[in-house]
């Protein structure tokens, strides 16, 4: 048994290898949180675009262009974006962003590429979650708000979105956890995250099992803590209903 502790000590403590884990975890957390912020903000915008009723050509008279009457450019753009993002693998998106956009065009550190990449990716999923939440609300809520003289924007802001957020909390929590775990592919573009740290320790210590198990344990611990915390928040939100 003493021998095994020595092995563990050598695996993680020698040459301060544990610092790889600590730094990797910080990188993972920072990317996740910042990407989630981008995802939420852009996701809200995209979802509003998909449900908007903006038809600039609805009064067109010519029968030749009659098909344009129902054309909604916002919805179109948002749907194309969501289709492309959801229809391609995250790693591929990240590699495209890294190799085509940031190298040569914009010089940026890996960290920024990762945040932007995962943020743009998450936004598509968040947009669909929010859209479902808004469309799942009783139509009467919007009618009541509008009947009281509120503008569409005010009604969205004060009546619809707060209720939708409450409803979609579980789905958003899920998406956050997926995002957190998905960042483990960031090593593909050279990001030094938790998974990459495990790989490096495995390579330099010649121990295959322990570094990976430790990484898995840390992912599991954090997602469990987060889930537990969000359940509490959900419960609090429910109380005001």
């Amino acid at each position, binding site marked *: 048994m003493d021998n095994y502790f020595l092995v563990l000590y050598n695996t993680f403590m020698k040459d301060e290898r544990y610092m790889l884990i600590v730094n990797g975890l910080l990188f993972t957390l920072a990317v996740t949180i910042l990407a989630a912020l981008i995802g939420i903000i852009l996701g809200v915008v995209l979802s509003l675009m998909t449900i908007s009723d903006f038809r600039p050509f609805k009064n067109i008279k010519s029968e030749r262009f009659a098909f344009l009457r129902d054309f909604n450019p916002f919805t179109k753009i948002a749907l194309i974006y969501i289709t492309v993002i959801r229809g391609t693998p995250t790693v591929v998106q990240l590699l495209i962003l890294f190799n085509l956009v940031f190298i040569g065009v914009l010089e940026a550190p890996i960290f920024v590429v990762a945040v932007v990449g995962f943020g743009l990716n998450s936004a598509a999923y968040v947009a669909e979650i929010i859209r479902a939440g808004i469309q799942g609300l*009783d139509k*009467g*809520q919007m*009618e*009541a*708000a*509008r*009947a*009281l*003289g*509120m*503008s569409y924007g*005010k009604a969205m802001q*004060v*009546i619809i979105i*707060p*209720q939708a957020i*409450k409803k979609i909390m579980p789905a958003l929590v899920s998406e956050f956890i997926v995002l957190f775990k998905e960042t483990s592919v960031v090593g593909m573009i050279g990001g030094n995250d938790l998974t990459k740290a495990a790989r490096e320790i495995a390579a330099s210590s010649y121990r295959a099992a322990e570094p990976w198990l430790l990484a898995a344990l840390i992912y599991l611990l954090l997602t469990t803590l987060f889930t537990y915390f969000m359940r509490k928040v959900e419960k609090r939100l429910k109380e*005001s*209903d």
Partner: protein
Amino acid sequence: MIKINNLHKYFGELHVLKGIDLEVKQGDVTAIIGPSGSGKSTLLHCINKLEEPSQGHIYIDNEDIMAQDCDINAIRQKVGMVFQHFNLFPHKNVLENITLAPTLVKKVTKDEAEKTAYELLNKVGLSDKAFSYPSKLSGGQKQRIAIARALAMKPEVILFDEPTSALDPEMIKEVLDVMKDLAKEGMTMLIVTHEMGFAKNVANRLIFMDNGMVVEDTEPNLFFSAPKSDRAKEFLDKVLNK
């Protein structure tokens, strides 16, 4: 006060309103009755443009609400609405439900809005519910709050869309009593209803609709004692002798 000329409404191919002409004067308490699918609710929804009219004109205080430059949000402040399913905001308490629109839309101060809200709660007999959430209220209480919420905007007319249809029989009276008080105070009201007793006793005008058209526009007593059209006779026979 409200003037409707040749109003048509289509839902796709479906022709729901087929040329409605109607004039509502200040203080009118108008009951709109008729079989389901006759277009009563759609007519009400067109008046504050919750449904976009397909053709025709609607004037509210001589302002054409179909005009391009019409500020519909300003019009809606004058036209209150009470819904069949109440549509209270579930994430706001009763007081917030009532004060929300006055503070946000009319820019009334919070203190003033709350003062009005308490007066209205008193009027509908629910002063003790100011801090309750809608989910804790009965159907009748919800509808009375919904009426208070509409009144808080100090509208010139209130549209009631089957206000008692979703209520338990025991709770209908408490809502009708509030509406009766409003009628006495001279509030202009348009009420789509299946409550024949209410239409007869409280309304001073009765509109019978069928198949997207106004079939009779008369006094309630006349309508119930001597309906002119065969369609109205048939309808009354069904609803009164059930």
